[in-house]
């Protein structure tokens, strides 16, 4: 068969997604919630011997993911996670998506039901640049939070300190934290992350599992 008609396949892995990928043990069965064009899942399948499923609701992203050949389900994270069986994945990933769902606590509870390991990343509202913007009297905008307050998919904002307190309240233990620069690279030091991290990736485990 001619290869000339093939749809374009993978995009390069964003730096922050590369850090997410490093948290996934090779060979894992992975559920990627809000998988976008399937880039992370494709990488995990091709380079880390994983298998898995993506979930995506945006029509263009969904089509892009299908074109890369990753299994992807058109579901609503707020309504449909009950479709997945208890502890049916080794790892469930929610990358830069928690702030966009209606009911984050429900989504995290579903994730903890589906898997014993959760990877969650979220932009840090406590970044110094955001604090300066607020001090100057304006809502924060940055590379991590590029949207104007009136036109944004982000429904929830949290600092890393808030987020960790919230995880603890939901019975999710932080096994590992990877603070990232605004460019998505790993911060050299974990200290002061709430002030200098643009975002952070958390590896979480339901307490007692």
């Amino acid at each position, binding site marked *: *068969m*001619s290869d000339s*008609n*093939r*749809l374009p*396949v993978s995009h390069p892995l964003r730096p922050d997604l590369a850090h997410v990928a490093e948290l996934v043990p090779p060979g894992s*069965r992975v559920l990627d919630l809000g998988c976008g064009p399937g880039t992370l899942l494709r990488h995990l*399948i*091709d380079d880390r*011997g994983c*298998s898995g*499923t993506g979930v995506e609701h945006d*029509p263009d992203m*969904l*089509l892009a993911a*299908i*074109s*890369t*050949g*990753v*299994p*992807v*389900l*058109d*579901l609503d994270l707020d309504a449909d996670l009950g*479709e*997945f*069986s208890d502890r*049916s994945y080794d790892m469930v990933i929610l990358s830069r998506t928690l702030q966009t769902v209606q009911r984050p606590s429900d989504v995290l509870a579903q994730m903890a039901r589906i898997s014993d390991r959760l990877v969650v990343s979220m932009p840090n509202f406590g970044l110094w640049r955001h604090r300066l913007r607020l001090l100057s009297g304006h809502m924060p905008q940055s590379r991590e939070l590029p949207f104007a307050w009136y036109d944004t998919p982000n429904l929830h904002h949290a600092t890393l300190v808030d987020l960790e307190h919230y995880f603890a309240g939901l019975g999710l233990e932080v096994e590992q934290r990877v603070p990232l620069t605004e460019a998505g690279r790993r911060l050299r030091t974990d200290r002061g992350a709430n002030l200098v991290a643009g975002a952070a990736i958390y590896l979480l485990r339901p307490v007692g599992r």
Partner: protein
Amino acid sequence: MTTPDPKPTADPAAEGVGLVETRSVQLFARDDPLRLAGGARLDEVDVAYETYGHLNETADNAIYICHALTGDAHAAGLHVGEARPGWWDNLIGPGRAIDTDRWFVVSSNLLGGCQGTTGPSSTNPETGEPFGLDFPLLDMSDFVTVHRRLGEHLGVRHWHAVVGGSLGGMQVLEWELTHPEDMDRAVLIASSSRLTAQNIAFSAVGRQAIMRDENFQNGRFVDERTPDVGLSIARMMAHITYMSEDAFTEKFGRSHQYGAPSRGFGIDFAVESYLDHQGETFLTRFDALSYLYLTRVMDYFDPFSRPDALARLQQSPVSNLIISFDTDWRFSTAQSRRIMRTLESARIPVTFREIQSPWGHDSFLLPIEPYHATIRAFLEYDGGGQATHE
């Protein structure tokens, strides 16, 4: 099912697969009869089929099309002297979502049908008379047995994909569950793994309309008198279930067929005229006995209820695409989601998409861009990386 699309494909001959003809082949004969799942035997089985595109040297570019309840082998292109192209012509053709420049496409009339393949109105070789109700009851797996034999006849032992909508999707599901090694990818559109009580109720009323017709005569149609009233009522009622309420509203509203109202019990509203036309034209192409036999196969289909239903598929996983339409109340998204959930929890690679469309169940026959783009993307993704899907 018909195509309710108000805009037929423009000049299909210029763009589609061009002129085609339905061919016929005897796939089972007295010395090699078809043994049905129910235990009965058919000594002669002829199958009507069409093909589009070319089988490549490695015979790995073949796609099988399974049709719905009232479909036929003529899925694409034009027959000589006919203006209307095949029932899935908007999907199948050069450059179309199922691209015949790339794929070798096979479409056949299913067993028990009435469009060239052996069915209950065929002649029983034992008696020289039509089978009538002596025709054995069929099972979804019998359709698959015959499809597989047609593949062998055409030199195809492995399919890049098997594709079907509605009852067609049920055949795809049966096929992948029982012979997953036959295919890489499966596409199930507006389908179901198990009819609901409401689905069965509609089928039952359709069958009752046929069997209570005074010309039914226990399936022995004498003097060429056939249960036309019953069959057309079955068709009219079923057709209502193939469309959404909004589709009816948009297409007809409350408009009158002859402009002004003409009160009485005759045809007055445009929708009545439309249904009457659907019922009448159906008689020219469909057979009451096939309607009974095929709808009954759907009623009993429940493959996930079998013990170890998924064992073979888990041994030899097939990549699945499940598509539903949001306004389809005949085979709703919930029914597609059930297939999705069952396959996903068995760790079968599955992709699912619900398409927005106002047209109801019949959407699967219509040229809806996101729907066709989804099928194309799924058929054309590079499955070269063995470990992932295939």
